[in-house]
């Protein structure tokens, strides 16, 4: 550990807060229909899009109608993406956009990939530079990077409208929310970001892969592509699917320590801003500050543990005779799977940033993290990604937890629970409870199925590689992480777990592992859309309620006491659900130091 490492972490938290506050104010204006400084620039385009889409933005939707639009649009996106990926080398694809003539990946891998990008998960069984054409990445994967992020945000906005709604059924208009999110939020930020990234060294071209002749007489082939444009939305939309296989560890996606810091800010800025926007939209900014404080406390706790664990080094390193403390000119620590330019702090922080959100980008190999360092992403996922969380998904999941905390708090003081002046009744609590439990249920069910079946074991890298045949904590961790990550729509991986066998680049002769591909695909779809429906149903149930003024006995939801209660509820739900499974994998590795 070093002073600069801790300084990086502290400054990151400060700069993030400073950026999220004004962005939150701006987003609240966008969603309450106020004029913003971009209105004169994009107003005409917005009206033009409504015309083309045949949408009446004034039409108010109740929660069922809103959900219906969302689901049908998602289905259309799924079908088009499947078609694009399965016709990768069809006649209409220009050579320049598939310079290496890659064939399509098999149906089962494509099913997984399409479900993954649709649901903002960006779980990748494939490796970008050996599987995808430039065209597939652009018109297929990049587009879903935008849309899945947009859909996450609009659900959060709809839920806020339900919470603050004054005796009505409407929770807004899906199409208007989506268009506004993209035009006024994601688009300007992405364009700016992409250009900043190129200025720092991220590549953006359509040339074929390079062949270099090195000074020692070898040849080196180097992958190319339009990376910066996808990188920007990958981070801003908390998507996380890399253009290249090693994601943000690859120097073309994340060339310097500065871009590393910048990329981490991009991941968290929208989820953090939405929390502030929520405070403003409820008319009480302190509501937003309380949730932000809850998230920040849990976030900093996670970073601290990860940094200390990684700086300490791994049992395998020590057994081989390495010393892992800081020496002059070397930061030491567990550098297996980490890049020199990021060091331990830059890798640990990035890891936490992308696993508290649903981003799932990685700048280092999670599988090579130490037991305790690796337990941190597990714990972040076990909290169902409410610590900032994905764009929109984080806030709406957190608001369901707030509802639960208010209910539990109400029980403790013996009063009917009230939240922002609205009485909480059986229906909302049931819906919120189900919405919270869906994700853990999906994750644990799939993990159990995969570890208990021989079909599931085919995916574990350790089975083939280790002497003990994969019956190790590492093998279990790989499996558990795969389904936990997919259920949370995160997308980061203990990358030894695979669902795609590719003997050579370009997909000729490749095949998928159907069990892992389909189970993962359904895991993602179920754990994305079921909570969305529950969140929208809660919005609908709350929207119609009358507001009663707060009385003397009303439990406040905007003070430190409530922050503590909320943290307690989140930790308790996560721990009760996942602790037994966590013990079997990362915790036993972290505590014993035994080699398998």
């Amino acid at each position, binding site marked *: 550990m070093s002073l600069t490492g801790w300084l990086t972490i502290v400054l990151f938290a400060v700069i993030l807060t400073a950026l999220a506050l004004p962005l939150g104010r701006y987003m609240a204006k966008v969603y309450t229909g106020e004029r913003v400084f971009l209105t004169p620039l994009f107003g005409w385009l917005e009206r033009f899009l409504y015309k083309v889409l045949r949408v009446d933005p004034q039409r108010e939707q109740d929660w069922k109608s809103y959900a*219906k639009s969302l689901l049908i649009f998602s289905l259309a996106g799924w079908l088009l993406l499947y078609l694009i990926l399965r016709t990768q080398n069809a006649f209409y694809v220009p050579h320049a956009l598939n310079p290496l003539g890659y064939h399509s990946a098999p149906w089962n891998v494509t099913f997984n990939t399409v479900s993954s990008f649709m649901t903002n998960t960006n779980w990748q069984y494939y490796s970008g530079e050996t599987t995808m054409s430039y065209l597939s990445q652009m018109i297929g994967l990049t587009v879903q990077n935008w849309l899945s992020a947009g859909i996450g945000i609009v659900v959060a906005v709809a839920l806020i409208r339900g919470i603050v709604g004054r005796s009505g059924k409407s929770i807004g208009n899906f199409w208007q929310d989506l268009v506004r999110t993209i035009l006024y939020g994601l688009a300007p930020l992405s364009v700016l970001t992409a250009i900043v990234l190129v200025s720092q060294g991220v590549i953006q071209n359509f040339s074929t892969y390079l062949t270099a002749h090195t000074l020692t007489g070898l040849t080196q082939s180097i992958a190319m592509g339009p990376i910066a444009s996808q990188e*920007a939305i990958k981070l801003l939309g908390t998507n996380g699917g890399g253009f290249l296989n090693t994601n943000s560890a690859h120097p*073309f996606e994340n060339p310097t320590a500065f871009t590393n810091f910048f990329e981490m800010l991009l991941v968290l800025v929208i989820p953090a801003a939405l929390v502030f926007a929520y405070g403003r939209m409820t008319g009480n900014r302190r509501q937003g500050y309380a949730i932000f404080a809850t998230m920040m406390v849990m976030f900093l706790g996670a970073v601290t543990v990860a940094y200390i664990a990684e700086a300490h080094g791994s049992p395998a390193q020590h057994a081989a005779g390495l010393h892992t403390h800081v020496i002059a000119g*070397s930061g030491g620590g567990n550098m297996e799977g980490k890049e020199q330019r990021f060091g331990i702090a830059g890798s640990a922080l990035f890891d936490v940033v992308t696993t508290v959100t649903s981003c799932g980008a990685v700048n280092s190999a999670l599988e090579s993290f130490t037991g305790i360092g690796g337990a941190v992403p597990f714990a972040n996922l076990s909290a169902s990604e409410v610590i900032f969380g994905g764009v929109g998904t984080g806030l709406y999941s957190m608001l369901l937890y707030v509802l639960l905390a208010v209910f539990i708090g109400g029980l403790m003081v013996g009063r009917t629970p009230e939240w922002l002046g609205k009485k909480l009744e059986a229906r909302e609590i049931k819906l919120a409870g189900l919405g919270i439990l869906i994700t853990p249920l999906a994750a644990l069910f799939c993990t159990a199925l995969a570890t208990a079946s021989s079909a599931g074991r085919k995916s574990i890298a350790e089975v083939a590689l280790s002497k003990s045949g994969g019956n190790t904590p590492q093998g279990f961790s790989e499996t558990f992480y795969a389904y936990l990550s997919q259920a949370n729509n995160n997308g980061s991986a203990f990358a030894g777990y695979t669902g795609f066998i590719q003997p050579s680049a370009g997909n000729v002769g490749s095949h998928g592992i159907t069990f892992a591909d389909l189970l993962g695909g359904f895991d993602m779809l179920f754990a994305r859309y079921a909570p969305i429906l529950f969140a929208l149903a809660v919005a609908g149930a709350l929207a119609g309620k009358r507001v009663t003024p707060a009385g003397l006995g009303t439990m406040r939801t905007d003070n430190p006491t409530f922050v503590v209660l909320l943290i307690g509820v989140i930790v308790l739900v996560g721990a009760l659900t996942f602790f037994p499974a966590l013990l079997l994998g990362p915790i036993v590795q972290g505590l014993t130091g035994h080699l398998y």
Partner: protein
Amino acid sequence: MRRDILTSLIGIVVFTILLGLVYPLVITGVSQVAFPGNADGQRVYVKGQLVGSKLIGQNWGTPVLEKNGKPKEVKGVIVTEADPRYFQTRPSATEGGAYNAAASTFSNRGPNSTRTEEADAENIKAYLELERPYNPGLNAASVPVDAVNTSGSNLDPEISEANAHIQAHRVAAKRGLSLATVNGLIGKYTSGRGVGFSGEPGVNVLELNLALDRLAGGAH
């Protein structure tokens, strides 16, 4: 329902055109005009020939030759040994030989796996064999971690300063340069921390080796 279907179908096509074609093309256009070198991947040419990218690490080894003069191969991969005149990058486990930048990959070596320990021990041994003749007293405990552990991308272009300063003894001896000269070059090609505090300093191996060749009065 029908209205939603119609809007969805139009919507997905319109968004695909705007976000999947117009957006990446605009970014490409701006990048190619404003930052052409970066957008193309910071290619390095020597005498008109592409020798690599500044951002991508390379294998600084030469092919091992069989008795018949052909390069030795194991499973179709050319076997190489470190060229002692050059600084060496970190170990790399990409498929098809080290530093295959057409297929970046994680090594996925677990923290408690015996195969991680074996790989580390092997890399320590190779490092000591190469460097100890020029660094008497060098042992496993003093080998910097980055010289033994594979990186995230397995394409790391940089090594730590400690690693470079150990290798400097060998390179200086092989090239007949003074240690001070080589260390001076290391300092010149060491990147600082991002914005002063973020990340770790690192030495860019390609730039450093190119500078050494230039010093030797090579034609480039």
